[in-house]
């Protein structure tokens, strides 16, 4: 009998007071390590502002092209460049690139591919027009100039 009594006196609770710390630590770990963007952008991205924005609802149909002055100017020069995925490409490579993007989509959705052009404020129309011409040749004619929402509504 005395044996049982002895056991009953031992505290059997798991200490839970440190549990929030563990949870917070996990939360912070994931917050810090989560990367929402899958590619590192190597061109300047000062996105222009506009008021008449349209949303693209189907993310799977959107593919991005980044245009702007390279961040590493000593390595790539000051001329605006086109970045697709992780590499700089020339306008002539765009048709190939578009076809590769289309291959990733289901057959019936290929014509709905939207190219989102993320262009820096200071980039010139020349390079963008070259890109547009190639996109027309590649038959990827839905494009979106990504912009930020203008703060004040002018009337």
């Amino acid at each position, binding site marked *: 009998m005395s044996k049982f009594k002895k056991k009953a006196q031992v505290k059997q609770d798991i200490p839970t007071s440190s549990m929030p710390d563990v949870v917070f630590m996990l939360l912070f770990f994931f917050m810090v390590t989560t990367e929402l963007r899958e590619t590192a952008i190597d061109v300047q991205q000062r996105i222009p502002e506009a008021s008449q924005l349209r949303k693209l609802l189907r993310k799977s149909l959107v593919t991005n092209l980044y245009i702007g002055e390279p961040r590493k100017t000593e390595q790539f020069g000051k001329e605006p460049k086109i970045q697709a995925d992780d590499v700089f490409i020339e306008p002539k490579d765009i048709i190939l690139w578009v076809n590769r993007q289309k291959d990733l989509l289901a057959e019936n959705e290929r014509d709905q591919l939207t190219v989102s052009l993320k262009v820096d404020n200071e980039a*010139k129309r020349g390079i963008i027009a070259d890109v547009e011409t190639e996109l*027309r040749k590649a038959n990827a004619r839905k494009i979106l100039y990504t912009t930020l929402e203008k703060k004040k509504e002018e009337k």
Partner: protein
Amino acid sequence: MPRSTPEIPNASMADIAFLLLTFFLVTTTIANDRGLSIQLPPPPEAQQDVEVKIQEHNMFKIQINSSDALLVEGNPMSDLSGLKEEIKKFILNKGADPLSSDSPEKAIVSYKTDRGTSHKKFIEVLDLIQAAYYDVYAEQAGVTNARFREAASDLNNPTNRQIYDKGRQGIPMQVSIAEPTKVGN
């Protein structure tokens, strides 16, 4: 005699933390792509050379040169605030002024830039052109401009489709973005 130290019960703290975590998990949405959407014309070689005669007064010409200066209908313009109203007036002229458009179907906004024009300026003016059209559409559909654009983004919804069709009826958005000239590069 040792006094028991007062303690706040903290076993439920984990629940609170989890609750917060779940709340943020649920409410966080990764930002959708937003911007000005346009449709490019078909490839250059696919277009046959058909002579299309467009009457001068059915075109609203906007030009920007390599130093970002604007020319609207042949006149220099430095203040952009009135441009939207001017485009709206042009679209909805319906033959009232013989020097402006005959009908919304025939009205074309011609937008020409230079290779040296900055993207910022290009977007600023394109935004005004689209604003003029969306304002007209929204008015015809009887909704606000923001509501109309929301409807146009999601056409699978029948209500949205209805608003969109009603707004656009008889007024196609004809914005011709011409190949840039080659002065500055």
